Each structure stands twice: as structure tokens, then as C-alpha cells.
């Protein structure tokens, strides 16, 4: 039957359009979501490996071989990353001829100073086995990749000497527990950096295994973010670079707040104008080491003294004298994401004032720099009085400093390993190392308020405006003028 299309429907449709179109123009039906949580990348579903993994495993390498049966590229991928190489890509630095790399493998810091020669202990935190075979042999073998340290349930696994699994570990149980990385996997090394809980970073410590919202708005509270939610990982390449182990950092390789917090977040224009010169972290991380005290000074020159009372927070014979601080305001510097300087073994020390292990780059005149919070770690560490460079001792092992408390011996032992001549005369010099503060982020209601930095009454706030290059408090003296 041929039913004629009722044409009046078209008229009705036209009338509807006439009304709806202008209305929708004024009131868009769909507004973009402002919820940053929607920007967290989705992860692939977990596959329970309990029935997949079969033993019997005698060594860590046995486990890795089993992993590689299915995950064929995994070892090759990981071996390209700094979790494996423990060094950065090669940099040209203005003060040295030829490219240099920076990392735990070949450079020093002002905590435990250096890993070279101390591999038996330091490699507890390396994602690889078999350091007893030496660096070249260890690095060449894909079976040395430690899958378990990142992927096993952290409760089932731990590492012993030379990066190998600890004696007590049930490798089959550990291998069956594998899954995507959690805060516990990352935290085992990164929360305990510097040789203990909270020692090194100040914004990373074991309180973040079970954080509440007040400690860290991302990891705690309803979001319960894992490290890899921000440190997005593709082919084992983890996003994010530590300032300490790099010279410059490509922003594409760095984690940023803007990954999730897109667009104009601050409706308050006064706050929004700050973003040109103030990093998110500056206001949203009012304090370092909110719960666990972090190390702020370390004097190696006092190490080896007999008869002193020892405790974790003030003095250890093997390490010297230190001080810890908790819940304190960061040090603020202009920062464009790079180092202006990173100490390379053999660099001369400063004869007046401290030697910088690293120095964040940026100044009030740098449009890409923003005021950024840092933890400053001040150390007194050994240097060669004749050659004028910092020395790296061998501390661990049967001949190391921690056994005999003999600095000369420790430096002589290191000579062939670091390739740096030791004159026989050592002293201790002050060094500064800056650690960027980016975790333990606070929500808006606990962020810094105006009067933390600005003061109508002249009461000094937490910003040293003159040191930052301002004439005075920018509320009164004006902000920085950029070309």
C-alpha cells in the first residue's frame, strides 16, 4: 500500500529547528568535563598469572627466561631504559669536552656518594641480576633483567647482594603474583632512596604506601593513584626524569600536572595570573616531608668516630653526622626543568662557597622558568686536596670504608674503578644538591594562601623576593617583566 509521506512533518521539523537551534546555541547541551580524573590513561586489564607460570625456578634468570617466552620484547625494551642502564643519554655540556652521561652507574651525589665499586650493596635497587659478573657481562645479558622487582607482589619478593633475589624468596610464588606495577613496587626503591625511608627525596616516603588525602591528594583519597598513572609507561619506558640524573630534560619525557589538569583550572583570575611565574607545585606542595623526616644535611667528615651514640637521625659511624627535618617549607628557585650544572666526576670543586652537585636552571629573566619548590640537601663530602675534585670512596665490601673506616684505603680502592687519580690527600667540602618537590600534592583547600608569600604588614613570608630577583614583594613592586 502506497502511503503518502505527510509533508507537514517537514514543516513541524523546520519549526522545531527554528526554536531548538538558537536555544542550543545559547545553552550548549554538552559541556566538556572539568574532572581531571577523566584524563588518567586507562590500563590494560590484569591477567592472573597464577595458572600460567610454572616452576621450577632456581635463579632469577630462570624466571626471566620464563617471562620472555611470552613477553618476547620485554627484556630488550627494558634494557634501553635508565632503570637498566642507570645512566642518562649522552649530553654535551659546556664545561667538558665530549659527551657525558649521568647516572648512578658513573656519577656521584651527596648522599652515599657513588655506586661504583659498591655494586654488591647498591644494586639492591637495580632492576637486574648478576652484578657479580661485572658491569659489561651483567649489562649484556637479557636474562639478567629483573622482572619481579617491578611486577611481583612486593610482599613476595626482595633483593639481596649484586641485584640477585634474596635467599629467602620463593621465586615461583613471586612469579605467579606478577601484575602491573603498584606504589609498593616503585616505593621499595624510590621511597627508600639514599639508604632508608624518606632519606633522599622528602616528597617520597613509605607513608605513601597507604596515604590519605591529606598526605597526597593523588595517591590518597578517592583517586588512589598508582605511580604509573602519572609516570605513564609504554614499552617499559617510564615517563619522568629525575633532575639529579640528567643535565637537561626534554619536556616530552617529563611528567607534568597538565597531563590531567588541562585548560584554565583556576577560575580565580588572580590565581591564574600566577601560573606564568609560579609552578603548580609551589602552592600545592606547601611542605616537604609531611610525615617522615627527610635528611637535610650529611657530614661525612664525622664518619668513623668511635664512641659516639648512634641513631638513624643524628649519627652513624659508617656515615657520619646528619640532620633530618619534617614538614618544612621548601627552598624556592626559578626553574625551567633543566639543570644549569651537574657535577661530572673530575670536575673541579668550588674554592669559595659550596660545590653544586646539581643546580637547577632558570632565572627571573627566563620566560620558561617558574618558581619551583626544592629540597636542598647540604653535605660535607670528601675531595682530593691536590687534584681539587670530589672523591668517590669504596664503602661496602670487606676492604671498604664501612669495614675499616680508612678513607685512604677507600679512595685507593676506588681509583681503578672510577679512573680518577687519588693524590693521597683528602679533605671535606660542602656540596649542595637540589631535589625537585613534586609529590605529596595538596588539594586547593590546603594549598598556600596569599599571605604565605605576600605580606601586607611587611612580615617576611616564605619567598625571598630579592634572592629571586624581584625588587621586593611583587604585590607592591610588580611582577617580572618579560619581553
Amino acid at each position, binding site marked *: 500500500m502506497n502511503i503518502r509521506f505527510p509533508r*507537514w512533518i517537514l514543516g513541524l521539523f523546520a519549526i522545531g529547528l527554528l526554536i531548538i537551534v538558537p*536555544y542550543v546555541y545559547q*545553552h550548549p547541551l554538552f559541556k566538556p568535563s572539568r574532572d581531571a580524573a577523566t584524563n588518567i590513561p586507562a590500563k590494560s586489564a590484569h591477567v592472573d598469572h597464577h595458572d600460567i607460570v610454572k616452576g621450577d625456578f632456581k635463579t632469577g634468570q630462570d624466571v626471566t627466561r620464563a617471562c620472555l617466552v611470552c613477553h618476547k620484547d620485554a627484556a630488550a625494551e627494558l634494557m634501553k631504559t635508565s632503570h637498566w642502564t642507570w645512566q642518562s643519554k649522552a649530553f654535551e655540556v659546556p664545561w667538558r669536552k665530549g659527551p657525558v652521561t649521568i647516572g648512578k652507574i658513573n656519577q656521584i651525589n651527596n648522599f652515599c656518594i657513588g655506586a661504583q665499586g659498591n655494586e654488591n650493596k647498591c644494586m639492591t635497587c637495580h632492576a637486574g641480576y648478576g652484578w657479580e659478573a661485572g658491569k659489561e657481562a651483567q649489562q649484556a645479558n637479557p636474562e639478567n633483567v629483573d622482572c619481579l622487582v617491578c611486577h611481583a607482589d612486593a610482599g613476595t619478593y626482595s633483593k639481596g647482594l649484586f641485584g640477585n633475589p634474596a635467599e629467602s624468596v620463593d621465586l615461583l610464588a613471586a612469579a605467579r603474583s606478577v601484575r602491573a606495577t603498584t606504589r609498593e613496587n616503585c616505593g621499595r626503591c624510590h621511597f627508600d632512596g639514599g639508604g632508608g625511608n624518606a632519606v633522599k627525596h622528602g616528597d617520597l616516603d613509605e607513608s605513601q604506601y597507604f596515604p590519605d588525602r591529606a598526605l597526597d591528594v593523588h595517591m590518597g583519597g578517592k583517586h588512589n593513584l598508582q605511580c604509573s598513572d602519572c609516570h605513564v609507561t609504554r614499552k617499559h619506558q617510564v615517563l619522568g626524569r629525575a633532575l639529579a640524573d640528567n643535565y637537561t630534560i626534554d619536556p616530552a619525557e617529563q611528567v607534568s600536572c597538565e597531563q590531567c589538569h588541562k585548560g584554565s583550572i583556576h577560575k580565580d*583570575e588572580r590565581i591564574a595570573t600566577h601560573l606564568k611565574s609560579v609552578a603548580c607545585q609551589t602552592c600545592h606542595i606547601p611542605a616537604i616531608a609531611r610525615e617522615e623526616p627527610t635528611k637535610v644535611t650529611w657530614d661525612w667528615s664525622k664518619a668513623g668516630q668511635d664512641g659516639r651514640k648512634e641513631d638513624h637521625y643524628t649519627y652513624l659511624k659508617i656515615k657520619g653526622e646528619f640532620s633530618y627535618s619534617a614538614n618544612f617549607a621548601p627552598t624556592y628557585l626559578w626553574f625551567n626543568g633543566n639543570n644549569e650544572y651537574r657535577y661530572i666526576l673530575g670536575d673541579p670543586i668550588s674554592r669559595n662557597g659550596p660545590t653544586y652537585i646539581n643546580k637547577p636552571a632558570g632565572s627571573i629573566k627566563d620566560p620558561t622558568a617558574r618558581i619551583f619548590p626544592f629540597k636542598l640537601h647540604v653535605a660535607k663530602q670528601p675531595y682530593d686536596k691536590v687534584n681539587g675534585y670530589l672523591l668517590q670512596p669504596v664503602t661496602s665490601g670487606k676492604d671498604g670504608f664501612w669495614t675499616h673506616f680508612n678513607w685512604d684505603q677507600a679512595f685507593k680502592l676506588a681509583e681503578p674503578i672510577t679512573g680518577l687519580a687519588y693524590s693521597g690527600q683528602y679533605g671535606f667540602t660542602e656540596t649542595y644538591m637540589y631535589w625537585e618537590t613534586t609529590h605529596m600534592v595538596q588539594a586547593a583547600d590546603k594549598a598556600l*594562601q*596569599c599571605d604565605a608569600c605576600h*605580606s601586607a*604588614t611587611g612580615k617576611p613570608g616564605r619567598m625571598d623576593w630579592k634572592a629571586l630577583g624581584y625588587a621586593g614583594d611583587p604585590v607592591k613592586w610588580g611582577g617580572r617583566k618579560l619581553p
Partner: protein
Amino acid sequence: MSTLTRALWIALLTSTTVLAAANPATQVTASAPQPSMRSMHPNFALLDADAVNVLKSGQPVSTMKTCGQCHDTAFIASHAFHADLGLSTFTPSGKTLDSSPGLFGQWDPLRYRFLTQAGDERLDLSTAGWLMLNGERVVGGGPATTSRAGRPLTELTARDGDPETSVLDAAGQRTVWNWSASGSMEMNCFLCHLERPNLAARKAAIRAGHFADANTATLSGLNIVEADGKGWVWNRATFTAGGLVDSKYLGIQAPTNANCAACHGEVHPAGDAPVLLSACNLDYPQTATTGQVVASQRIDASGVNLAGKAALRRPWDIHAQRQLKCTDCHHALNNPAHVNHVQGKEPSHLRYDPRALDIGDYLQRPDHNFARGQSAQVHVAPEYKNTMRRCENCHDATARHQAWLPYVERHMVALACESCHIPKMYAPAIQSYDWTVIGIDGAAQRSCRGVDGAPGDVRSLVTGFEPVLLQRNNVDGTSQLAPYNLITTFYWVYEDAKGGKRPVRLQDLKAAYLDGGAYAADIVATFDSNHDGAISPAELRMDSPRKEAVVKARFAKLGLQNVHMEGQVQPFSINHNVTRGEYVLNDCQACHSAGSRVTKGMQLASFAPVSPVFNANNNVSGSGDLIRRGDGALFYQPVPARDHLYVFGSSRLDWVDGLGALAFLGTLLGVTVHGGGRYLAFRKRPPGHESIRRVYMYEAYRRFWHWLQAISIVILLLTGLIIHRPDLFAVFSFDSVVSLHNILAALLVINAALSLFYHVATERMQEFIPRPYGFFDDAIRQAKYYISGIFKGEPHPFEKRPDARMNPLQKLTYFGILNVLLPLQIVTGALMWGVQRAPELALALGGLPLLAPLHTLVAWLFGAFIVAHVYLTTTGTTPLEAIRGMVTGYEEVEDHDQHVSG
């Protein structure tokens, strides 16, 4: 300074002062505060009243002489309403209770002490008594140094009965005040310009009547000078070899918020110490009367026991948070930094006049008349009202509001910024003081709003309060709604011997109620209604003629004549505690609905012994109703219409709605009855005309035009109804509905205009124009048809043809609708829509209070028309035939050519 630290500070200073006074040998240097290092002020000589260095004379310091070495202190003292306090316009009057617009002479029923005028029968506050009572909030100079006639107080000779040279002693007896012994109190530069003025020592000196020592006492505790019981001991160590005081010990500076707070109210410095409040405490007058607290701290971080505190992540005052100081807005009028703002706009072409006062000249003669607003409670220096920067002088409000607020300009014209940006106060404020009765402690029956329990008790839950919105008549002639606290006071007044009205003195009030520190026997007998021998707070109220008679009798015994109760409602402006963002009143329905903020009332008192009057001595329209409930509770109910305000969704005229509803329902009833009749008639006798023909009645454009208009009008009526009564349709968002209404209105107007063009261009217009010739005959025929013919199945009297589709009644109806209702609706609607762009046009035509009800009435009539119109479409050959015709264009109509009629 938090209350706690302030209290500790005062306690410390008081104790050191007392110690010093008790034991002249005691050195107080150990506990003296650290000297300030910030002051740039040069060292200078401290001079006494004879311009001799105090190191030499050992006399109290004279600020006028000391500061006058460089600054023009005479100019400053004479250009300072803080000093004048109403003295310059002091006008004694028997008729009113106010003799000046300032603290010196303005009747303040909260403090309840009356500054006695010359010739008054009874002495309440003499000038000296006034100064001792209020001195801690009097900067000095003005009435503290000068008599009402303009002579120095110290030169006055005591005269019997002169309120300037006498004082009430402890027993309430009039005695002579010897000004030459007490000295007078010069304007105290130190009070506002020292980092740490010694407020406690100053207060002690004033309370003791040692006025000449007050300014020197302000310096004590700073290592410079201490009292030794007889006079002042100047500490040589803080002076230079040349006899100049080392300025860093003084910490001379521009006034800080803390300096202003000393007299005005709760001000807290930045820092982590939780904000604590002294609620409803007249020592913090601005806070007590309005709940305003100047603090940068977030409310959720404060120490106040506040309901819902955790969600209040906003600072107490955003301007304090953003580092503004009191003096940034209330600046010296000739301060070169602000001079461009003060210069005004003349000549009009000049945006900026660089010929500002030189900074040196300014420092020599800084104008101490400070820029001020136009608050309802401060009357001194009316010529300086509105000299301060207003919100819009610093903020470009339209740019930010344009993004979300419809009718921005209209909102800006009608509302002060504070109305939305100070939606709620989070500190308690005084509600009422009832002095018609008196507590055993000699205090009024007081009540405080915004707190559940006794104010000041940490266990009391502070709930805060929403200010009432009242119409403020601005100095520039505009009017806006602004937030206020209303304080109601009740008190007795009597007629003195000269017939002047005076408040009953506190002393007489006490005498009337109390005998030897307890309620008098006949007072207890009258007030103690439950006969338990004591007067409970609930019994202590003037709620019966018997109580009134007994108290009046006791007044009569005291010699007070013609005593009666009075009450007044006084508005107190709220301008501080501004907020932004989510804490602002920005929900349309908060105002545009039932229970609108604009009509939200305020409880004035839980018991009102008399009906008070709304204090008219201010710029606030108290046009609302004072409602006294049966139980004596008193309320203020704003009536916005009396201030020519019409708030959509909240305001309406009931009679307009009644009339409109009557027309609508009447029509509905009419068509129901008519339709029912037709149905009954139809069942009895089906229609009998045989000849029907199918006609192409409506061409496409006509149908499109009709249905667009029909749908527009129906939705306009529905959205209009929602706008009119949003409380009944809470599911819809108000601003979306308003915007849909406006879009449809625009569509309707465009559609009507195009259709008009079509009809004019095609000469179809004629169809709508009733032919005058024989019109009435035809109309009567048509009417007769509807009244009777239609029931009998008669054919329509006029054939419906494509070139003549309307019968005479239709023509008449459309003539009315198209010429009266539609234009009226379009014009009123357009004026209402345009009220923000061309407010004067709408105002010229009666303003919203006229336009809006008219628009509503016509909308009702349109509704009635729609009902009738739809009903009449069923009168075609079949009930749905006409509608089908309007949809498809083809309609089956009676064929009159074929029809054989009689």
C-alpha cells in the same frame, strides 16, 4: 592579633604598668618589646605642652607640639572626623535625642548613655564622663580638647549645672570636674601610627580621668617612658645624645589594620593562629553590630565553633586575604597615591591630572578626613560620604559577570555588589537590646543573632546569619539593594522640666528596678509570674500593663514625668567579609523564586515591648513591614514593590493573577459547557447538511506561519508561567527558561513581522479587517449561530472560503488580538527585556512594577484566547476538520452554493 594573643598582650602590659606604678624602682626593660626595625621615621624630640623637651621637663608628651615640629598638626586635627566626632556640628535640641551626628552627641541606645546638653534637668554623661566612658575609642582632639562653644576645655571655669564642667560621682551625685587638673586629651598620633601602641595603659589613664597622660601612656612599655606613680620617667637610653627619641623604638608607620582594629572591631593578622571572636561585644563595635571580621584566614581554619565550617574554604574577607589594608580604601583624601581618584571627573575630558600634591607637602599636611563609604550607621562628616573607592573603581565587574549572568546591567543597577558578594555573615551580631527592663547586673536584655547559645561562650554553636537586603539611597541619587543587619532597641524616655524628650538615665533605670543590688520588692511581686521569688529571664520583659504601671510608678517616685517606652530599628551596613566564586549568591532562584532573598525578612526581637520605628536618620529605605506577632516577637519583612522593585519569580500582583485566572478559567468553563451542549445536541440529531466540498484552504506559508506562531505562543505561555512561579516548577533551571522565553519571543516577533509583510503584500490583509458595512448584523448572525444554530445543526452563517475564511466574530477577535494584545505583549516584553540596555525607557513607561503585571495579565488573556481558539476549530464539518485543514491545507467545508437555504 588574635583575641588570645591580644588578651595576653594587654595582660602583660597592664601588669607591667601596674608594677611600674606600684614600685617606681622596678625596671621594665626586660619585658619591653623588641624595637621595630622597619620604621623609616627620623629621630625627633619629644616635646611637652610648653614645647620643652620632655627629657628636660619630665612632663607628659604633647603630640601636637611634638609631631607639630614637622607635620602641620593644627591642620591635621582640624581635618579629621575621627577627632571631631560631631563636635563641629553640635546642636543641642530638646526634641531629638541626637545633638550631633557623631560619637559625641549621637544617641546610641546600645551603650545607653546620654550626653547631657546644657540646661538638661538631669546629668547623665558630662563631657568628662563621656570621655572616661568612650575614651578608648576616642582618638583625642575635638571634644576631648575643645568645649562645645569652641574654647579649650582646660580654660573652662566650673559653673553649676554645666554638663561640661561637672561629672557624676560614684554615688550618682553631680560634682565639679576640674579640667585644669585632669588636662585634656590631644589628638593621639601614637594611637594609629605606632606599631605597638600601649592601649591598655592608655585606657587605664582615660578611665581614671587622667586625660593629659593618655598620650604618654600610649608610649609606655616601649622602653621610652614609664609611669612612676607621680609622673613620667623618660628612659634616657632610648634617646640620642642630642635628646631625640630613637625612632626605631617607636616603630612609627602608616596605620595598619591592627591600629584600626583598636577601635573598630575584630581584625586578625595573617598567620596560622586560628581566628577567635569576641561575639556581640561592644568593645569590638563593627563586629558586634554587623558580624564583620577582617581576617585573611580561611573560615574553615578558624577557631570559631561554626556550623558547617569544614565547607567554608573561603577567607573571612577576600580583600584581607589579598593583602589589602584598611587604609588602601579608607585613605587620606589628599594622599598623592590616590589623588587621581579623588580629583573627580572635571573637566570631563581629563582622565588624569598629574598636578598632584607633592609627597613632601602631603607628609606635612596629610588630610585626616579619610575616604569613607556611605554606611547607614556612621553619620559624621556626611560631606565625605562615598569618597572612597567603591567596588567598581577597582573591579571591572561587567566583564566577569557577562560570561554567566543574564541581564548584567540590570542586576548591577538594582543590586550593590555586597548583596551577592556578602551572602552570609559568619560571626554573630547584635539583634536587640531591651532597656525597658534591666538585669541585676545593670545590663539590658540582649539578644544576638547568628549564634545558638550565649555569644562568646565556646560551647555555643555559631550559625551565622543572612543579612537583610534593604534599598540604599546612594549619594549620587541611585538606589540599590544592599545588605544590612538590623538592631532593635527599646528604652524609656521621659519629659524633662523644659518639655524636652530625654532617655531615662541608666542610674534612674537602676534605681527604678533595683534596691540595694537586688530587684525591689514590688518589682519582684509584679514580674515574678511563677511566684518562685526570682525574676527569670523569661519573666524579665515588659509584657503587661501592670508591669508597666509599677515601673512607671517607681519612675514617678524618682521625679520622672511622662515616661513612656520607645523603640527603634537601626540598620547597620555590611560592606566587609566579601567573598568570590562559589560562595557568592549566584543561583538565580535564590532571588527569583518564592522565599527570595530580596523578600527575606529578619527577626528583630524575640519580644518587643512596643512597636519600634524604623530609624529614618540614614540612607536606607525601611519601606518594609514591622510585624509584631501575638507573642511579642518582632520581624522585619521587606516589601520590594514599595521601592519600585519587581523581581521576576518572586514579585507578583495577586489581583492580576486572579483576574487573569478568572478570564482563563471562565473561557475554559464556557467552552466546556458549549462543547457539552453541542455533543448532546449532536447525539440527538446528527447534522444534516449534505453538501461538503474539499477546498485548498491554507497555502503552505500560511500553515507554517500559523503553526510556528502557535507553538511559540504555547511555549511562551508555559515558560512565562515558569518564570512567574518558579517555585511551582523547580525542576526547570530559571535562566534556561528565561533564555528560551526570550528566543521564542524574538521568533514570534520576527514571524509576526514577516507574516504582516505577507498579508500586506498579498492584500490578504483584508481578510482580517472587519467590513464596517453591515458588520453588526453579521456579527449578531454569527453570535446567534453559536448560541443556538450550532446546536440545531444549522449550517454556518458564513461560508468559509479560501478568500474569506473568517466570520465576523473571528475578524473582531483577531482585530483585537493583533492590534491590542499582541502589540501590548510585544512592547511590554521588549521593555522588560530591554530594561538593562535602556532602563530609562522602561522607567518612563512605569518601570517593571507596572510592565511586568501588565505582561502577565495579557499572557492570561492569550491563554484564554488559545482555549477558545482551539475549541472553535472543532466547529467545522467534523470536530477535527479545521485542524486537519491547517495541517494539510485541504479542508472539507460546507458548500453553501449547493445548500438550499430558506
